């Protein structure tokens, strides 16, 4: 017995030793940086997280690139600037002839149309679909026609499978445009032409007929119409090198949008990963769905690698929750000049351990240091002792949403439906003290929503001042002298980062200056997001980061019905100003209108309570050059040089 145990132990030790020899250490990449969490997706059309977009902008090349020093668009896949028609509605992009996919094939205008078409498909559920649907002519109509058809086909496929449907689902069958197809298919399937008016959705649902047959006919009719419908969208690949985009309203900042990775082109080989049904590249519900494995790095037998990308880098390896590795795309036009040949994005879920890894020299770069003691990091950076810590003002704002919409929250009257109360609370906040004394990390006090000076050409309106006396007066006007009569104010905040401290400071100021009684409700991120989405708050903490260089990236958030408008602010005046700016020809007049819009929503109506504009510390190891700190944390790696 004992001998058996000893033999086993020795075998085990030998095994461990051999395994240790066999697993060689991983080759060190030229640049290793910190990804704060694992990649959510590497499908550019579905991205919305900063760390995903950072990888995408290095993997794919969009029409233009964003220069990390100036944040202005420069030539990338297409020559900058585009040819713009006199009315500003038709833009012609000329693609550069030396654009190559990582398999060596040339990048064509049709690849861009393919990528953008995918963005607006209902099956993609892209957060940034509005980049196309809001501006490109016919795109919104195409998208709504498609989602309607998907609705009808979903109901029909359920019926075909023998499920029953309810009245509401049945009514989908009678909706405007698709009803015509259903009606025709129904008539054909039944062999007679029923009188169209009497054919309500409910009646179709009750009718006994071969649902499978009807579903098939509608599906085929829809699939046959697909391309003809898309031809009405203002996207046209005239030839391999020319892409014409027609807008439905002037979009002077589209060159900025065109540098955003969600508008990446798509290689034809990706189409192989599409789900098909009955010969058409749609699912039986009519959705365009791609097998998500198309973004998994795979080396095929003929030496080609997928996914095929056209950026300076290609994807080599993706280890779940550990790292993503990129290497230079050998076919890229600048391939020979790129000094940084390989990049690894290492996942560090905990910011403290990421910083420790950086201190130990394991990583070269932290895009944003987010530790609980970041004021200490900032002080080090300021003192000059650590030139590798670079404080960078961001185009991002930390603010609080007032609940402008619900008269009652949790059974208590919500005073913030009154704009005077909101303004009073906004006036009674000493933002300077919070930014300078509490945070102590270089954040700028925010008196407006849009960080001044971060968006070229935009002149920030006069922000909301610190005026507790004025706040008290307004509160008295609204019927709450010295805060009497106010219910207990409920403030919801996210318990991560500096939010708890900032929320406590704000609560104290309101108690001191306005005599309000404030209760704080800290929740961890998920529970917080749920309460925020259901608008279960009077005041709730929030952040917004600029996506592109135009004031609308902030102001659209406050538009009535916008998906990100958590405050429920709805002002016809503000919406009208945004709409006017949308159709203004003169860029200066447009900026003036946007300025007025911001002043209306943020200063006069106080829909939100801006607190501070973020400053982030970026850590770049000495010897790594070419990572230019900028307000959007936009880091292309192709210009980086690394010296060890």
């Amino acid at each position: 017995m004992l001998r058996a145990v000893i033999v086993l132990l020795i075998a085990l030790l030998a095994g461990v030793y051999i395994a240790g020899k066999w697993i060689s250490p991983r080759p060190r990449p030229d640049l290793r940086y910190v990804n704060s969490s694992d990649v959510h997706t590497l499908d550019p059309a579905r991205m919305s997280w900063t760390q995903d977009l950072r990888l995408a902008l290095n993997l794919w090349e969009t029409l233009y690139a964003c220069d990390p020093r100036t944040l202005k668009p420069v030539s990338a896949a297409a020559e900058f600037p585009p040819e713009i028609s006199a009315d500003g509605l038709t833009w012609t992009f000329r693609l550069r002839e030396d654009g190559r996919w990582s398999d060596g094939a040339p990048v064509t205008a049709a690849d861009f149309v393919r990528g953008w078409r995918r963005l607006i498909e209902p099956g993609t559920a892209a957060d940034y679909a509005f980049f196309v649907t809001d501006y490109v002519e016919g795109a919104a109509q195409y998208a709504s026609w498609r989602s309607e058809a998907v609705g009808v086909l979903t109901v029909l496929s359920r019926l075909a499978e023998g499920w029953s449907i309810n009245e509401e689902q049945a009514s989908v069958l009678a909706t405007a445009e698709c009803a015509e197809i259903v009606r025709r298919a129904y008539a054909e399937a039944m062999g007679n032409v029923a009188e169209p008016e009497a054919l309500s959705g409910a009646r179709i649902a009750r009718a006994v007929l071969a649902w499978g047959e009807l579903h098939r006919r509608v599906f085929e009719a829809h699939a046959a119409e697909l391309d003809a419908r898309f031809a009405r969208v203002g996207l046209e690949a005239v030839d391999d090198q020319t892409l014409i985009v027609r807008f439905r309203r002037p979009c002077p900042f589209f060159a900025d949008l065109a540098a955003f990775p969600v508008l990446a082109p798509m290689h034809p080989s990706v189409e192989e990963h599409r789900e098909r049904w009955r010969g058409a590249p749609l699912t039986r519900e009519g959705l365009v769905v791609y097998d998500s494995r198309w973004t998994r790095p795979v080396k095929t037998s003929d030496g080609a690698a997928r996914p095929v990308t056209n950026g300076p880098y290609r994807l080599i390896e993706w280890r779940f929750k550990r790292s993503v590795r990129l290497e230079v795309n050998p076919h890229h036009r600048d391939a020979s000049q790129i000094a940084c040949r390989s990049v690894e994005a290492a996942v560090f879920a905990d910011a403290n351990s990421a910083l420790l890894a950086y201190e130990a020299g394991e990583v070269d770069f932290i895009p944003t240091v987010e530790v609980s003691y970041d004021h200490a990091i900032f002080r080090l950076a300021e003192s000059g002792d650590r030139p590798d810590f670079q404080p960078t003002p961001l185009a991002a704002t930390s603010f609080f949403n007032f609940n402008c919409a619900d008269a009652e929250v949790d059974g208590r009257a919500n005073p913030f439906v009154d704009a005077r109360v909101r303004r009073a609370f906004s006036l009674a906040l000493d933002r300077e003290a919070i930014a300078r004394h509490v945070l102590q990390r270089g954040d700028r006090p925010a008196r407006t929503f849009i960080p001044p000076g971060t968006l070229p050409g935009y002149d920030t309106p006069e922000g909301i001042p610190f005026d507790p006396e004025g706040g008290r007066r307004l509160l008295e006007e609204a019927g709450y002298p010295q805060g009497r009569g106010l219910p207990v104010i409920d403030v919801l905040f996210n318990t991560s980062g500096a939010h708890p401290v900032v929320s406590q400071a704000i609560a104290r100021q309101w108690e001191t200056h306005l005599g309000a009684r404030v209760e704080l409700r800290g929740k961890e991120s998920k529970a917080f997001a749920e309460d925020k989405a259901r608008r279960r708050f009077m005041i709730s903490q929030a952040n917004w980061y600029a996506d592109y260089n135009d004031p609308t990236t902030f102001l659209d958030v406050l538009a009535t019905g916008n998906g990100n408008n958590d405050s429920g602010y709805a002002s016809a005046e503000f919406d009208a100003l945004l709409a006017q700016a949308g159709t203004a020809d003169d860029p200066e007049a447009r900026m003036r209108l946007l300025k007025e819009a911001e002043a209306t929503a943020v200063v006069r109506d106080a829909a939100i309570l801006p607190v501070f504009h973020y400053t982030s510390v970026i850590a770049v190891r000495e010897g790594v050059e070419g990572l230019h700190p900028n307000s959007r944390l936009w880091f292309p790696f192709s210009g980086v040089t690394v010296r060890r």
Partner: protein
Amino acid sequence: MTESLKDAMVLRGRRPSRLPGSGRAAIAVLALMTLAAAALWPWSAAWYDVQEIDSAVRRAPSWKPAGNEEAFLARLSREPVAFRASWITQTLAGARSLLGHDDLGRSLLFRLALGMLVSLVIAAGATATATVIGTAWGAAAGLCGGRVDQILMRIVDVLYGLPYILLVILMKVALTRPLTALLGGRTRYADLVILFLAIGSVAWLTMARVVRGQVLSLKHEGFVQAARAMGAGPWWILRKHLLPPLAGPVIVYATLTVPQAVLQEAFLSFLGIGVQPPLPSLGRLAADGVSAISPFSGYWWLLAFPCATLVALLLALSGLGDGLRRRFDPANRHPSLLG
């Protein structure tokens, strides 16, 4: 028989009538801490949230007070207890920087004083809840016996099996809204009540088992049998013969529950499901202290003082519990019965 009886009679005089030394020391420390926290209450309740953000953010401990005294005194005048002019108030306001300031410039001294009180109140509330439920439940199970005993104790077993954190979170979710509405939106008081109900509702399980065991063994003692033979009813027996000898173990166990409850409160607040800021508790203060410690900054006082207080409090409470256990231990009282 005669030997042991003689032993018992001789030893009776030798039984320890006082607490052992460690227990006495524990009581002294505990009394000192509790009294200090309680005595400071009028000031700590007024001052725990005075934020001197322009002068005292993250200031190290020092004899010299930081910031302006005005903010402190102005805050007091609005409270119901107006000590404004007294020399105690002046002295205390002058001592506010003794333990340093936190990241909102609040005095750690007063936050710690109030935090300890909050933790103790939660622990006392939880212990009272646990004692009442546990004693009633255990006594009922032990006295009734048979099927009732089976059912009652199986419920205890099932509750024992459930994860403790899950129970607390469930209670919090279920009770927060109605309690907050009841208290007119003051979530910070609702949190306190929920915390001691939640901790108490978990701590009673062991108490129920201990009491049931005691009742079962007492039931078969000669004096209970004799009382029953003389025609005494169950209530009379409970009152005269069962509850008095139960008092010892119950008190001992309750005393040992207090430090557990303090620790659990600290743990829950550390996880963020305890009291809400700005109200301090020992756990929350320690959690804030942990996040302030880093290789780049040395705000040691934010972690050291809350943790030291927590450790001292826990040691004192366990020492007291242990002392009481020995004081009431039947082995000390009737050694011969065991011999």
